C-alpha cells in the first residue's frame, strides 16, 4: 500500500493505494485540499416501463434506475514518472481506461479517458459517466456553460420559469456541457473543462458527472429508426477532462484562459527538414 502521488509545483493528486482511484486533489499554490473520488459508472438504459414506454435512445437519455453501476470498484494502475510528465495509468476494465497526467508548470490535472467498445452482450444498453464525488456543500447548485459563452446556474429539480414536476430524477437534471461544468461551496471551486460537448449534472451535493459514451440497443422512436449503436471507429471514444481546483475568486480567470487553450489548441505539422528555399516570387 505505497503512496500513489503525482505532483508538480502547483498541484498534488493522491490516489487510493487500495483501489487506484483518485482520492485527493491539492492546490499547493492556494493551500486548498479537496478529498475527491473520481470513477467511471454506467446507467442501465431504459427500454420503457409501466410509467412510460419511452426507451433511452439517440434523442432520449432515460436510465432505468437512479443509481449508476460501477464500471469497476478498483483500477489496475501503473505510475510513470519522468522529468517532463507524471502519469497514473488506470485500467478499469477491458473497455474503460484512463491516464491521469500532470506536466510541469500546469495548473490543472488532465484526465484522458478511453472508453469502448461498450459491451452489450448482456442485452443492456449502457450510458457511461465519469463522476467526481466531493464533500463540497453545493446546496443543489451547479454551473454549466452555454456554448462556451454564458455560465448558467443550474438548480437540481428546478426550472426558473415554471413549477417543475420532476419525473426523471437523473435525465431531468442533465444539462448540456459545451466547454465546462463546475461546483462550488462559496470558497472552493472544482471545475472540469471538456474537450467536446457532453451531458453533465450534479445529482447530489458535492458531486459532478459527465457522460462520456453510450451504446444502446433500442430505438427511441424519435425518427432515427436505428438504435444508438454505432459501428466502426465510433465504438471507441478517447477524450480529455481538465480538472481545476481553485478559490472561488480566482477560478474564473484560470478556467477561462485554460478553456481558450483547449478550443484554440496549438496545431502540429511535421516535415522531414532540408527543404529548398522558397520565395513566393
Amino acid at each position: 500500500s505505497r503512496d500513489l502521488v503525482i505532483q508538480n509545483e502547483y498541484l498534488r493528486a493522491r490516489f487510493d493505494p487500495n483501489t487506484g482511484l483518485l482520492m485527493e486533489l491539492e492546490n499547493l499554490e492556494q493551500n486548498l485540499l479537496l478529498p475527491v473520488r473520481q470513477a467511471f459508472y454506467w446507467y442501465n438504459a431504459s427500454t420503457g416501463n409501466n410509467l412510460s414506454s419511452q426507451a433511452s435512445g439517440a434523442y432520449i437519455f432515460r436510465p432505468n434506475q437512479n443509481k449508476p453501476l460501477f464500471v469497476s470498484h478498483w483500477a489496475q494502475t501503473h505510475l510513470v514518472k519522468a522529468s517532463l510528465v507524471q502519469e497514473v495509468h488506470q485500467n478499469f476494465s477491458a473497455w474503460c481506461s484512463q491516464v491521469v497526467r500532470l506536466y510541469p508548470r500546469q495548473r490543472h490535472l488532465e484526465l484522458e479517458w478511453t472508453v469502448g467498445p461498450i459491451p452489450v452482450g448482456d442485452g443492456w444498453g449502457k450510458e457511461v459517466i465519469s463522476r467526481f464525488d466531493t464533500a463540497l456543500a453545493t446546496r443543489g447548485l451547479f454551473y454549466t456553460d452555454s456554448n462556451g459563452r454564458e455560465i448558467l446556474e443550474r438548480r437540481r429539480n428546478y426550472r426558473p420559469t415554471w413549477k417543475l414536476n420532476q419525473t426523471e430524477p437523473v435525465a431531468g437534471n442533465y444539462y448540456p456541457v459545451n466547454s465546462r461544468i463546475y461546483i462550488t461551496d462559496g470558497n472552493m471551486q472544482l471545475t472540469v473543462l471538456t474537450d467536446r460537448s457532453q451531458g453533465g449534472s450534479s445529482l447530489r451535493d458535492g458531486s459532478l458527472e459527465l457522460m462520456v459514451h453510450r451504446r444502446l440497443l433500442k430505438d427511441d422512436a424519435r425518427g432515427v429508426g436505428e438504435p444508438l449503436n454505432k459501428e466502426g471507429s465510433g465504438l471507441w471514444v478517447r477524450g480529455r477532462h481538465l480538472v481545476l481546483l481553485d478559490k472561488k475568486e480566482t477560478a474564473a480567470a484560470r478556467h477561462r484562459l485554460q478553456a481558450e487553450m483547449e478550443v484554440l489548441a496549438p496545431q502540429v505539422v511535421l516535415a522531414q527538414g532540408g527543404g529548398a528555399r522558397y520565395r513566393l516570387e
Partner: protein
Amino acid sequence: SGDSAPLNEAMAVLQHHDAVSGTSRQHVANDYARQLSEGWRPCEVLMSNALAHLSGLKEDFAFCRKLNISICPLTQTAERFQVIVYNPLGRKVDWMVRLPVSKHVYLVKDPGGKIVPSDVVTIPSSDSQELLFSALVPAVGFSIYSVSQMPNQRPQKSW
C-alpha cells in the same frame, strides 16, 4: 493549389446536431465523415503553402491525423524531422508536444538551435514510446523545433 472552402462547407453541414449527437443513421454518419475527410485534404495543401510562404522553406509537410492514438509514421520512422507548432491564440503559449517515436534517444533543438529538455516515455502495457518536449510558441505564430535521433544511445527507463 489548396482550398479551405470544402472544409468550410463540410463544417457548415456538420453544424446539424445529427453530426455530433448520434442522432443519425449509420450511413448518414459515414457520409458526414466522408465530407470532413474530403474537406481536410485540400486544406492540408493550403496550410502547406502558407507554411512554405511564411517559413521560406518548401517542405513536404506531414499531418499526423492519428496522434490521439499515438500513431505517426513520420516520427516513428525518421531519424530526423521538424516539428512546426502553430499557435492560433493571441498570446504566447508554453505547450507540451507529445509524439510517438521509436526506441531511441532524441535531441530536440528550439528555433534558435538551443537544446531543449526532452523525455522519451514508454507507455505501460504497450511497447510504444512517446517523445515529450515543451514548445514555446508566439501569439498567432509558429515555432519550428528540430528533432534528431542520437545514435548508439539507449533511452533511460522512466519509472
